[in-house]
């Protein structure tokens, strides 16, 4: 039972990071109907932004501290938001009227560019992410080890999810995002500036990826320029699993993938963890082709 609960906590902590990345995929898909494959690399850049920011911030706010960690997180999110906007402006916007496949291939190109430019700029060897959070003593509740970092990951993910929900559902710009997602032409006719909305979507998604990058690096403090590939792929799967284009779906998908994978890894079939996680995806898609929370799309003829 203890082992079960421990694995559940491990899985939720891992899954919530995937959930944060998955949100970025799903938001961009919801608005532009294309998969931004460079998203996993924004996640990596978020971790590296934190890596290079931490020593600078330590001059003003001593690290490790809660205030310092929030400052690192916030600035890394800001940097990646700007990067997301720039990437969209330079690489995707010129192709917006082109076939979807062109943009998709460009996204893969951007992804490879970021990975190998990262290897060039940061070096290929893994780097130790600095301790930005005070290492609280490990809390033990009847054999359960609650690691403060895992709890912080869960808490930050929850806060960011609520913030995102507020932005999308309650603000003017969120309403505009939903309008563009529903029908870009009609939204434009109603006076919504679609360019700004799309830029904003990229900024929001990239900021979440940066947050995921920092949380990941706090938990697994070894970062390298190729670290975004696998989490990016899994988050993409999570987004599809939850119903791509659907925000709560992406979060749910992330948690499911994280928990399933962790439970499988804890057994003797650990080698097939990824295979089983993807088998779950196939099963769910066979039963619900649009994903767990995805809406059925009616093809208009």
């Amino acid at each position: 039972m203890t082992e079960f609960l421990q694995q559940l906590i491990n899985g939720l902590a891992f899954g919530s990071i995937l959930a944060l990345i998955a949100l970025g995929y799903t938001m961009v898909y919801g608005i532009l109907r294309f998969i931004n494959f460079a998203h996993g690399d924004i996640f990596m850049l978020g971790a590296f932004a934190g890596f290079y920011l931490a020593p600078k911030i330590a001059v003003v706010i001593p690290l490790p501290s809660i205030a310092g960690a929030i400052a690192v997180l916030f600035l890394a999110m800001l940097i990646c938001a700007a990067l997301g906007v720039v990437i969209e402006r330079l690489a995707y916007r010129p192709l917006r009227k082109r076939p979807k496949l062109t943009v998709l291939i460009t996204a893969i190109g951007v992804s490879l560019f970021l990975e190998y430019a990262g290897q060039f700029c940061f070096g290929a060897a893994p780097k130790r992410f600095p301790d930005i959070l005070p290492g609280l003593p490990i809390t033990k509740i009847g054999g359960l080890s609650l690691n403060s970092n895992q709890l912080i990951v869960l808490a930050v993910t929850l806060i960011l999810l609520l913030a995102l929900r507020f932005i999308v559902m309650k603000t003017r710009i969120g309403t505009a995002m939903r309008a563009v997602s529903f029908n870009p032409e009609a939204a434009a006719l109603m006076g919504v500036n679609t360019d700004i909305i799309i830029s904003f979507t990229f900024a929001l998604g990239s900021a979440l990826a940066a947050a995921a990058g920092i949380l990941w690096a706090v938990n697994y403090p070894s970062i390298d320029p190729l670290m975004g590939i696998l989490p990016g792929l899994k988050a993409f799967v999570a987004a599809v699993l939850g119903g791509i284009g659907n925000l709560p779906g992406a979060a749910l998908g992330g948690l499911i993938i994280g928990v399933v994978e962790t439970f499988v890894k804890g057994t003797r079939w650990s080698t097939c963890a990824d295979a089983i996680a993807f088998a779950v995806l196939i099963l769910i898609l066979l039963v619900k082709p649009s994903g767990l929370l995805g809406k059925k799309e009616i093809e208009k003829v």
Partner: protein
Amino acid sequence: MFAAALATAGFLSGCNQSSSSASAESDRVKIGEFASLTGSEATFGQSSHHGTQLAVDELNASGGLLGKKVQLLTEDDQSQAGQSATVVRKLISSDGVVAVLGEVASSRSLEAAPICQQNKIPMISPASTNPKVTETGDYIFRVCFIDPFQGTVMANFAHKTLKLQNVAVLKDVKSDYSLGLAKFFKEGVLAYGGKIIAEENYSGGDKDFNAQLTAIKAANPDGIFVPGYYTEVGLIALQAKQLGITVPIFGGDGWESSSLVPIGGAALEGDYFSTHFSTQDTAPAVQNFVKSYRAKFNETPDAMAALGYDSAMMLADAVKKTGSTEGAKIRDALAAEKDFAGVTGNITMDANRNASKPAVILEIKNGAFQYVETVAP
């Protein structure tokens, strides 16, 4: 043919000073090297490359080989499967090297070995410890010990020094090296009457090991054997401590890297690994090597650097002995190497072209690698 080769060599060595018109091609002995200069095992490749480079520089400073300068051609395989085959093919077919040095990782040496064997170009792996590497054929050598030895050494160490009864194993299923070490370690533990109470797997490149470690913790072992590479080992130690696992963790030479302690930090204190070489060895050859390595690269050499150095020096020794750069002749000379005084100990080639030599065990203490004991073959 032999006479011709000798005559050419003699002619060139005689004319080396006066004639500069000899083509750049023939007044050099070309040695190929493939290493993981970038990618996940970059520090291994960088270290072995530095060691090899130092050896070549020293050779050239003392007059080169057979009167010619030695030219080291280095290719980066990016720590990726598939790349080493490509770069070794290039070294042999388009650069025309006389021998190939590399790699640290067994899986990549296994990729290159058949190509060298096919072309009858001798290959010396500095640090691939998986037995299969030299089984490829009679042109493939190594200057390090092999997994059965290293796995057995760690099993004996677990038995005699750590006195472990119930041991857990956490291995990397993507790496031949890790699987080999785990196999022979398990056999060793069972042989002395210990028990393997948990065996978990991960894939190289993973960052999250909480699931496997939680399962291991539930089995309550006295010690955990992790025959992996430093990138994962640091994170494994860190996550083990966070889960409240306090038993010692120990592994093989894949741990040895200057990146290990920065990643694992205090979580690694009191953990052990077996390796090829310790800078705390007081033998003059070792101390000289450490001194010139520090002078050249401004860092302390690790085992990979020492093995890279030995691989190049042993090749040079074989070329000198046979007086030829012909593949078959170098091969015969390499196979006959006996008590070659390397910086990683005295190396003798056994019938399977594996190096028979001692291993050392190091402990991680105050963030540094501390010498514990030497185990003879």
